[in-house]
C-alpha cells in the first residue's frame, strides 16, 4: 500500500475534509437538482461554437447547446457512475475480505487466490475489450468498473478482520452464541468502517477517471452526457483545434476537483496522514 502525504500548505489553503465535503455537496446538489441552477434546458439549441458572453457564460458547443447547462447536467452521470461502481466494488470487496478473514482455512486460501488472480489481470485493456463488445449503457459500465476494482478493498478488509477476529469483544459475542452473520454485522463492520471509507472513496475516484478515459475512447453510453464525454466531444468535434478552452477546461477542472475532493474526504479518518492509490 502506498502512502501519500498532502503538503502542509495545501492543508492551510483549505484542502481540508470540511471544505471538500462542501465542494462535493455542491456537485451532488447539481447532480440531483440540475434544473434549479442550470441557465437553460439541455434541449435548447443556440448558434454553434459560440464564445462566452453574458447569455452563455461558457459559450456553446458544436451542436449549439449551452456548455454550462451541459456541464451541470453531466455531473449526474459522472457521479452516478463513480458512486455506483464504488458501491458495487465495496460490496464485493467487503464480503470477500470478511469471509476470508473471518473464516480462514480453505475459504481464505480460495478467496485470496481469486483476489490475487484478479489483481494481475490488466484492467483497462480488459474493460476496453468488454466495452467494445457490449456497446455499453451506463449500468453495464458501472458493473464492469465495479467488478474490476474490488481486490485491494478485499485485501485490506481481510487484514483488518484477521486483526480483530480474536479480540475480546468478538470472542465474547461468540461465547454468547451469536451467529457468525450477526457478529460480522454488529461487531466487525463497525470496527473496519474507517478502513472501508478511504477504499470506497478511492474506488469512486478511480471509477470516475476510468469512465472519463472510456468516454474518450468512445466506449461510454453515447446518449449520456458525462464530463468525460464532453471532453471527448471537444476533442473530436474541433473544440481543441479552435482553442475553445471554455469548452474543454470546465469539465476537466470538474473531474480533477471532484477526484481531489473525494480522495481527501476518504482520508478524513486517517489520524495524521492520508493514503492514496492512483494507478
Amino acid at each position, binding site marked *: 500500500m502506498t502512502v501519500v502525504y498532502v*503538503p502542509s500548505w495545501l492543508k492551510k489553503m483549505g484542502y481540508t475534509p470540511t471544505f471538500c465535503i462542501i465542494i462535493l455537496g455542491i456537485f451532488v446538489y447539481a447532480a440531483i437538482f440540475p434544473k434549479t441552477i442550470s441557465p437553460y434546458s439541455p434541449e435548447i439549441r443556440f448558434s454553434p461554437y459560440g464564445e462566452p458572453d453574458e447569455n452563455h457564460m461558457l459559450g456553446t458547443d458544436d451542436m449549439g447547446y449551452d456548455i454550462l447547462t451541459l456541464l451541470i447536467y453531466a455531473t449526474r452521470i459522472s457521479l452516478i457512475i463513480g458512486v455506483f461502481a464504488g458501491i458495487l466494488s465495496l460490496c464485493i470487496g467487503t464480503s470477500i475480505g470478511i469471509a476470508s478473514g473471518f473464516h480462514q482455512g480453505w475459504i481464505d486460501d480460495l478467496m485470496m*487466490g481469486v483476489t490475487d488472480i484478479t489483481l494481475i489481470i*490488466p484492467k483497462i485493456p480488459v474493460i476496453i475489450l*468488454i466495452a467494445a463488445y457490449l456497446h455499453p449503457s451506463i449500468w453495464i459500465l458501472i458493473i464492469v468498473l465495479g467488478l474490476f476494482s474490488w481486490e485491494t478493498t478485499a485485501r485490506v478488509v481481510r487484514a483488518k478482520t484477521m486483526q480483530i477476529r480474536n479480540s475480546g469483544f468478538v470472542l465474547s459475542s461468540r461465547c454468547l452464541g451469536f451467529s457468525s452473520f450477526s457478529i460480522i454485522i454488529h461487531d466487525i463492520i463497525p470496527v473496519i468502517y474507517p478502513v472501508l471509507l478511504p477504499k470506497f472513496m478511492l474506488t469512486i475516484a478511480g471509477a470516475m477517471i476510468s469512465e472519463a478515459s472510456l468516454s*474518450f475512447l*468512445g466506449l461510454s453510453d453515447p446518449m449520456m452526457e458525462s464530463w468525460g464525454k464532453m471532453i471527448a466531444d471537444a476533442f473530436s468535434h474541433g473544440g*481543441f483545434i479552435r*482553442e475553445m478552452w471554455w469548452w474543454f477546461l470546465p469539465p476537466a477542472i470538474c473531474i480533477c476537483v471532484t477526484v481531489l475532493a473525494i480522495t481527501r474526504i476518504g482520508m478524513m479518518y486517517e489520524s495524521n496522514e492520508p493514503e492514496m492509490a492512483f494507478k
Partner: protein
Amino acid sequence: MVKIHPAGIFLSQKLLRYLLSFFCILLIVFLLPRMMPGDPVSNLVGEDIYLSQSTIDSLRAAFGLDTPLHEQFIRYCLQIMHGDLGYSYHMHGPVFEILISRAWWTLVYTIPSIIIGAWIGISLGARAGFQSGKWWSDVIASIALVISSTPPYLLSLLALVLFVYHLGLFPFKGFYDTYNLQSILYHLTLPTLVLISFYASRNILIMRGAVLTEKELLYPQFARSLGIPEREILFHHIRKNAIIPLIALIALDFGFLFSGALFIEIVFSLSGMGSLMYDAILARDYPILTGSLLIIAIFVIIANITADIMSLIIDPRIRRSS
C-alpha cells in the same frame, strides 16, 4: 529430503497464480465473442466487414464453431501457442505481424519515459520527503498531486493545446516528416515529456510518502546520533528502504507500457500500438483488440515476475520470511 529454498517456494506460488490469471484472460478472450449476442463469426472477425456466405461457412469451420466449447478452447490455445493471434480483416494481415510492427514505435518512446520518470521520481521524491518543511518540497508535491489526479489523456490534451496549437512549438502529429533521427526526436519530444511528467509525478508522491515514513523510524535517528551527515543518511540508509514499494510499481509500468501509451498516441496521432488499439475500437476490429490484450497480459505477467524477483534480491526480509 531435498530442502527447497524459501525463495523458491515463494516464486513458484506466485508463478502458479500468474499462470492461472493468464488462463483467466484467455478464457475471457475466448468466451466473450462466443457468448455475446449476435453471430459469433462477426464477433470473431469484427463488425462492418462484408463476407460472402461461403467465406462465413469456411470461417465457421476454421474456428470450429460447430464443435463443443472445450474442443474449441483447446484448438484456440494451440493456435495461440503457435503465435497465431488471428487475421484482421480490417487491416488485411495477420494480427501478430501487425502488432509487432506497431509495437516497436511505442517502445521507442515509452521505455525512455519510464526510466527517466523513475529517475526523476526517485531523486526528487526522496529529497522532497527528506526536507518536507521546505517550500519547494511542498510545491513539487502539490504539482505531482494535481497531475496524478488528472486523467492521463487530459494532461496530453492540455499539453497539445498549449504547446502545439497555441505556441506552435511542436509538430501536430506523427512520428516523423522525413525519416531521420532529427525529425523523429522533434516529433517525440512532447509526447515523451507528457509521459515522463505522468510517471514522475506518481513516483514522486510515493517516494516522498515512503521517505517521510522511514525518516521517523529509529534507524535514521540512530545514524544521525552517530554523526553521519544528513545526505548520507538519506542516500545510504533511507533511500534503500523507501525505494522498495516503488520498484514493483516501476516494473509494472513496463508491463503496462502499451496501455499506458494508449491515450498519448491517440492525442498526438502517433501510429504505435495504442493508436492501433484505438482504430480497432472504432472499427470494432476484434482480432486486433484481443491480440493486443493478450500481448499486454503477457507483458504484465513478465513484469510481475520481474518485480517479484527484484524484491527478493533487494529486500532480504522477504527472502527470509517467505
